[in-house]
């Protein structure tokens, strides 16, 4: 969700459309040309809801909805970091175990016998560890010139080893810090929930309107205000339904607010700052970026630091949700699911195309499938097969729409 009406890279610009019908026509032209946007994801979600709801009527219950929000939070966070790496045209295979290292660090640092560190300090240290690991990976990739695939594959092994070393002889460590536990297990009071979520939508609408007015004042073509109104109204409707539904049960967890905050901040970084612009440029044409005087190495190292930090935050969220860490921290399907989430959400594996919100949408799809199959009591095996098929479908949609773009000259 970008904050203002200006177009961002990789998105069809409907800015020149002066009227609603122009805008609709431009969108349809875009669809035919392979600019699918979020359409496949929304359709996919619809199918998931219909299928699982018809198989088990608890799927669309308030309590399960609240569960889903908590379940998808860690994955979403890690996938947001992956989006930046994919935008560069690189890959990070280490994020799973980096999240493990961070989760284990937080649990050990804040373990009562291990000294009396305050919660925020423990969290900060874990985040710095994640950033430092990203820095290390980034430096090896840029200064030594080893491909990111190899460096982070080595990282996958090494950081798995570090998790095992840290947990040696401990089995399971219970998270004792109230703050850490509260991230995924405490809920906003209903009043606050409404204020925060509706306030965010209101702010979004106001910023959009300001952007529109600034364009009009500058004499630049503006999209029709109706379009803006529709978009804000749709967002508000979703927000109201989400908040209302959540408070039929436990309510909005703090981690959901954290996710919205990250979404806004990272979208700003990606689409409204010089750094973000350079990330897209490097993913689009690294040679051109270099010739434009962009410090490609520095941007790359920064992106791997973002990925490491977000992975660490995801690991803290996992530890919070489970209230404990064990030797399996950061393992399992975390890595592949977070890459799959970014790709399913519409971020291209080929660099230069995608959005931070892809992480949220993709994680929503993956978590819904896992959640629904859990309700049905299906095995992990079945879950992997279905998630694999969905990933393949998403990548196929990406490849086919690339062909569409190529044949309509938008390669």
């Amino acid at each position, binding site marked *: 969700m970008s904050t203002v009406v200006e177009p961002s890279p990789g998105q069809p610009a409907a800015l020149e459309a002066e009227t609603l019908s122009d805008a609709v026509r431009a969108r349809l032209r875009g669809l035919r040309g392979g600019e699918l946007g979020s359409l496949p994801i929304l359709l996919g979600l619809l199918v998931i809801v219909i299928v699982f709801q018809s198989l088990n009527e608890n799927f669309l219950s308030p309590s399960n909805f609240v569960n889903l929000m908590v379940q998808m939070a860690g994955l979403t966070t890690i996938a947001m970091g992956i989006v930046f790496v994919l935008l560069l045209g690189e890959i990070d295979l280490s994020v799973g175990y980096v999240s493990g290292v961070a989760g284990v660090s937080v649990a050990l640092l804040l373990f009562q016998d291990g000294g009396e560190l305050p919660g925020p300090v423990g969290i900060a240290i874990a985040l710095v560890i994640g950033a430092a690991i990203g820095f290390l990976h980034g430096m090896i990739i840029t200064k030594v010139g080893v491909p990111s695939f190899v460096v982070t594959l080595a990282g996958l092994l090494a950081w798995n080893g570090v998790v095992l070393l840290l947990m040696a002889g401990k089995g399971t460590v219970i998270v004792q810090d109230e703050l850490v536990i509260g991230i995924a297990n405490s809920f906003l009071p209903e009043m606050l929930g409404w204020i925060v979520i509706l306030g965010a939508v209101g702010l979004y609408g106001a910023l959009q309107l300001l952007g529109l007015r600034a364009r009009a004042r500058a004499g*630049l073509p503006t999209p029709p205000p109706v379009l803006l109104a529709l978009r804000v109204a749709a967002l508000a409707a979703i927000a109201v339904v989400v908040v209302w539904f959540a408070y039929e049960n436990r309510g909005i967890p703090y981690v959901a607010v954290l996710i919205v905050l990250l979404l806004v901040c990272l979208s700003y970084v990606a689409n409204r*700052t010089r750094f973000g612009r350079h990330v897209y440029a490097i993913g689009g044409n690294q040679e051109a*970026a270099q010739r*434009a005087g962009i410090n490609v190495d520095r941007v790359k190292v920064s992106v791997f630091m973002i990925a490491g930090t977000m992975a660490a935050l995801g690991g803290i969220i996992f530890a919070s949700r489970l209230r404990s860490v064990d030797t399996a921290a950061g393992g399992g399907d975390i890595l592949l699911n977070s890459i799959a989430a970014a790709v399913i959400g519409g971020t291209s594996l080929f660099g230069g195309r995608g959005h931070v919100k892809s992480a949220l949408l993709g994680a929503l799809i993956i978590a819904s499938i896992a959640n629904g199959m859990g309700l049905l009591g299906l095995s992990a095996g079945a879950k992997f097969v279905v998630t694999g098929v969905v990933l393949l479908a998403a990548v196929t949609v990406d490849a086919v729409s690339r062909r569409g773009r190529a044949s309509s*000259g938008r390669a």
Partner: protein
Amino acid sequence: MADGPVLELQGVSKSFGAVQALDGVDLEVREGEVMALVGDNGAGKSTLIKCVAGIHTIDAGEIRFDGEPVQVSGPKDAAALGIEVVYQDLALCDNLDVVQNMYLGRERLGPLRRLDELAMEQTARETLKGLAVTTLKSVRQTVAGLSGGQRQSVAVAKAVMWNSRVVILDEPTAALGVAQTRQVLDLVKRLGQQGLAVVIVSHNLSDVFEVADRITVLRLGKDVATLRVADTNQQQVVEAITSDAPADRRAGIEVAPA
């Protein structure tokens, strides 16, 4: 107009492993002058340009700007001196739109270090209009969707938007149709008239003779001749490009600068 050349290369050499791409090349261009750089494929024209732009570091020789020796160790250095380059491969990002490409690496910022998209879009529009580039439907469409000529126009506009003193164009009309070629050639002439120093690479000698004041001929990485357009003809230039006997470099055809 200053007396000396704005940009001056002396004995510039560059090799890639065993390939000696440039071998002691001299070149100079003055304010208000259009210097054409010609030579066969692989003669070293693009390499020379990339050395001036700071993309390659030179092995030997000297680059002078306003008579002062300068170190151009990156594109930022070149831009700071006022040297703008339109590359043969254009160097555009397909996934970015026209405005984003024109400002790449030099984005304007507003409050909160936020990109000032409005100012960038306005200036980009004006620049394109000033160049009579009218075929663009929108400055907010991605470059991937543009025709070859439109892409070339964007690359040229990107170079002349900054108050530069030297504009270097590597085969700027290679992908253009008749009308667009006309526009770029007129633009090149106009840049010269505005007092800029222009270096243009082209394989089309009639274009060169139309816009250039002087011609430097490169052959196998050596500058074999520098000719004044007024004193030469296409036949002579073709001979310089292809002749096999550079025994006496520039024999008989050395000319004084305008």
